[in-house]
């Protein structure tokens, strides 16, 4: 992963702040209940600009799709690694990596883990989740 993550902006500062405590949050509209990612200045479901708040996410989701990258985008990146879209229980989809020696399958349950950045923030990554029933 690239440690050189751009600084947060006004719309994303709270989201990144939560990552310093390893909390995954999802921007949610108090007015209509819509959950969206990335955080932005408007609720895309109801157009509200004054009703958005960051709500703690459960930290669970499923693999929506994935790809194992075999060619490094930068020389210092070790390959292979698994990039995935994870659909959070709250609805929004996150781009992330799956930290596991095994290839995932579509719809596999996953749970959040954290990759710490040098500046104190952290990137949410995901790992296979033990089956809830188990």
């Amino acid at each position, binding site marked *: 992963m690239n440690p050189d993550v751009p600084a947060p*902006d006004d719309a994303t500062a709270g989201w990144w702040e939560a990552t310093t405590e390893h909390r995954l949050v999802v921007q949610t509209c108090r007015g209509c209940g819509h959950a969206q990612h990335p955080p932005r200045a408007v609720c895309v479901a109801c157009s509200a600009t004054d009703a958005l708040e960051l709500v703690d996410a459960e930290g669970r989701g499923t693999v929506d799709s994935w790809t194992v*990258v*075999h*060619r490094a985008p930068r020389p210092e990146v070790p390959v292979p690694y698994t*990039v995935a879209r994870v659909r959070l229980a709250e609805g929004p989809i996150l781009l992330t*990596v799956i930290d596991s020696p095994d290839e995932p399958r579509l719809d596999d349950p996953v749970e959040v883990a954290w990759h710490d950045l040098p500046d104190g923030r952290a990137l949410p990554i995901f790992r296979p989740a033990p089956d809830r029933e188990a």
Partner: protein
Amino acid sequence: MTAVAIVGAAECDLGVTDKSILTLQAQAVTRALADAGLTLADVDGFATTGVSRFSATQLADYFAVEAAWTDSTFAGGCAYEMMVARAAQAIAAGQASTIVISFASNQRSARSRKLGGVVFENTPEAQFETPYDPLNPISYYAMAAQQYLGRFGGTREQLAEIAVAAREWALLNPKAFRYGAGPLTVEDVVGSRMISTPLTAADCCLVTDGGGAVVLTSLERARDLARPPVVVLGYGERSTNTSMTAVDDLTTTGAAGSGADAFARAGITPADVDVLEVYDSFTITAALSVEDLGFCGRGEVLDFIADGRIRPGGELPLNTSGGGLSYCHPGQYGVLLLVEAVRQLRGECGERQVPGAEVAVAHGTGGILSAHATVVLGVDR
């Protein structure tokens, strides 16, 4: 509305050119104008991108034309299909009379392509996606392919048919980068170097220099020019996403809406299409386009393209130049879809000519399945 036609079409030098972007643009524009029997003195509108910050204005400067109309819409590879719609509207409205749509790139000579892609630092993608090092655009298309194969039960071998068929066409096109390279087999494609699963190097388009241009004017004027007019019958477009997480379902794209609009405007259905030129940045791009444009049902494209249907002599001639996979891919390939469609409708394609082609569709895709634009072209009846 005033009917508009394409009256000139040409490529610039293709492959490895060691020429500047503007020199290649000059080749494309002057060759397309010569094809139409026109000169720069006839041109009052430019549409282009990929030149500079003010791309179309840059061309007006370069060619010393005070343009009455320009369009620098930047939407990746489908921008040129979008520009046909804009140009047809401008000509019909009387704002311009003769418009050149062009693109050229020297990306192979200049080694300017990067696997991680180009992401502006001020976008959400830079904060929320780039840190995970997806290849851009490849990994997004790879995830679309993975989801499609998983949901509908297809195989990489079935998907490889897009590349295999493109090579068959390229072997008939002397201008194709892979002309003379010999046939490509399914085993070659799936056994090629893995880039981002399930896509191998052979599922990915070429990286070449190249480009082209088309010239548009009113159909009325077109009938007095050098070549048989190719009439703009319909167009449509959709813009859906820049991020890798905005689209809910990766197995269907904006091509569905874009195609439906274009076909409705033209008053045709997929059954009326004689030649189909779709964007094949990756095998999956072309497969999703064929399906979303309505040539087969949902989840059916891999069965649909089997058995030679899209190869030379098949029922649905697809990417008859050899496509971005085997002919030329200069980074934004959309203008070359138009050039090939025009040539097929004029009957100029030699060995790869589709006999009696009267309706052709050019469908572009930009970015990471971000933008989609369809143009329906037909012979003058």
